[in-house]
């Protein structure tokens, strides 16, 4: 008696295209990802050697350009409004650091007015953001 061999049917999923699919996914996410960024204003940051890295999560930027314009969250604001926005940030995150992205040619008066407003709302942790010192002269 001849037994028929129980031959398992070979089932194979072709995996050759798997790599392409992963690539496609990778490229799709690379293209579609938009990092939350703030355009801010065009500023020429001062150069300094003593700068330290500041945790991104805690930063709220205040851009001050050479004409004394102030920008927070990509909106032009007054000193008072900037301080109010910062005060709200402080309520949700007491570790907030107000980072001044100031232009080297800004009059100090503008910065002082902002700082005075910040003091009023107790937003006292600030940072003067700078570029990393290069070999160029400091100022």
């Amino acid at each position: 008696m001849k037994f028929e061999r129980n031959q398992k049917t070979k089932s194979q999923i072709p995996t050759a295209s798997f790599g392409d699919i992963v690539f496609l996914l990778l490229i799709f996410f690379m293209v579609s990802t938009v990092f939350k960024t703030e355009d801010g204003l065009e500023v020429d940051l001062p150069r300094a050697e003593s700068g330290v890295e500041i945790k991104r999560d805690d930063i709220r930027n205040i851009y001050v350009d050479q004409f004394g314009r102030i920008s927070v969250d990509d909106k032009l604001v007054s000193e008072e409004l900037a301080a109010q926005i910062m005060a709200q940030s402080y309520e949700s995150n007491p570790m907030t650091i107000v980072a001044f992205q100031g232009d080297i040619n800004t009059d100090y008066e503008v910065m002082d007015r902002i700082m005075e407003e910040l003091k009023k709302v107790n937003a006292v942790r600030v940072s003067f953001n700078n570029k990393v010192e290069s070999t160029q002269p400091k100022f």
Partner: protein
Amino acid sequence: MAVKIKKFRRPTEEMNMSSIADIVFLLLIYFMVVTVFQQDIGMPFVLPAAAEQEETVQIKESNTASLQVTASNIVLLDDQPMAINGIKNELERRLLENPKLVVIVENHPMSDYGVFAAVLDEVRLAKCRKVAIKMMDV
């Protein structure tokens, strides 16, 4: 008589592609781990809160170093003109003599923020812990 013609068959040469996905994944994970997003660099400073400002602290004048930035961006250390990159050494020397030294950076409203930042950088490099910044009364 039938002649059996053998069909010419190309030998199938297939590369094993199953490991490509692993390689891509590995690359993906490698770059995910290695990528460092550019951090913001800044000079942290804690402003005096409005509540604290009421209780003014008297500081002996001998314990202070007064840095002034004039409207024409000239830096004066205790009324003496000073090059910005000389501030660090001078303050370090003074700090050694008097560890209680308080540095007061006073800026003219019309002076440039960049000069202030440069001066503050020097003060920080000199490891002065007690720093006050204010605007000149004009």
